[in-house]
């Protein structure tokens, strides 16, 4: 088992059912001990590949997917829905899955519903705009507020 196996298992389980696998389940699925799976979760966390709920090994984020509901809902045209950690990640889910989909979110200012539509590998024209408040050099100071 490699860390890539664990990363892929987490992503595939989130895609399939919207639920991140617990360490023990990942160990069983990959045929390794729970302690080996736990060590992989810890390494993936240290490398910022996944984010765990503080004090646990419960996965909160496995980019671009969120394991908990967020305001950034991805609705694929095959009927499946997923949560993105932000709009960037939500579009990234569509890119990762390689299919058409919509990102349903809200305006950060007025909370009005906004939808980004991806069809045939392109985003449909929209009046919406993206705003980064923080330059790239400071993203790692607080990855939640960028």
């Amino acid at each position, binding site marked *: 088992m490699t860390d890539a196996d664990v990363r892929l298992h987490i992503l595939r389980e989130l895609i399939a059912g919207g639920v991140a696998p617990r360490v023990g389940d990942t160990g069983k699925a990959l045929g390794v001990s729970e302690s080996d799976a736990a060590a992989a979760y810890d390494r993936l966390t240290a490398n910022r590949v996944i984010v765990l709920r503080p004090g646990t090994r419960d996965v909160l984020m496995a980019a671009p997917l969120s394991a908990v509901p967020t305001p950034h809902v991805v609705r694929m045209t095959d009927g499946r829905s997923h949560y993105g950690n932000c709009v960037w990640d939500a579009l990234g889910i569509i890119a990762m899955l390689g299919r058409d989909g919509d990102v349903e979110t809200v305006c950060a200012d007025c909370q009005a519903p906004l939808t980004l539509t991806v069809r045939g590998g392109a985003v449909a024209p929209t009046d919406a705009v993206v705003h980064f408040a923080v330059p790239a*050099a400071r993203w790692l100071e607080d990855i939640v507020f960028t």
Partner: protein
Amino acid sequence: MLLFRSEEHVRRWCEMRGLSRGAVFTPEQLWTIAKPWHGRRLERDWQRFTPDEAEAVFESAGLTGAFWQFGISRGQSP
């Protein structure tokens, strides 16, 4: 990063928080970034971009200048 209905809503949001306007661009440009950034996540050999690779992705979307450079945090991959 956040999505807004229009630049006017960005201005209002920044004003209410006493923040300077950062970088404003289109969802099409964000899609141009998102595709290479996340498109290979289900591949076994996926690796996080180096700062140079990330800056090249930004440049491919027309996002250039100091705002899009990793500067002092170059030691860590984004």
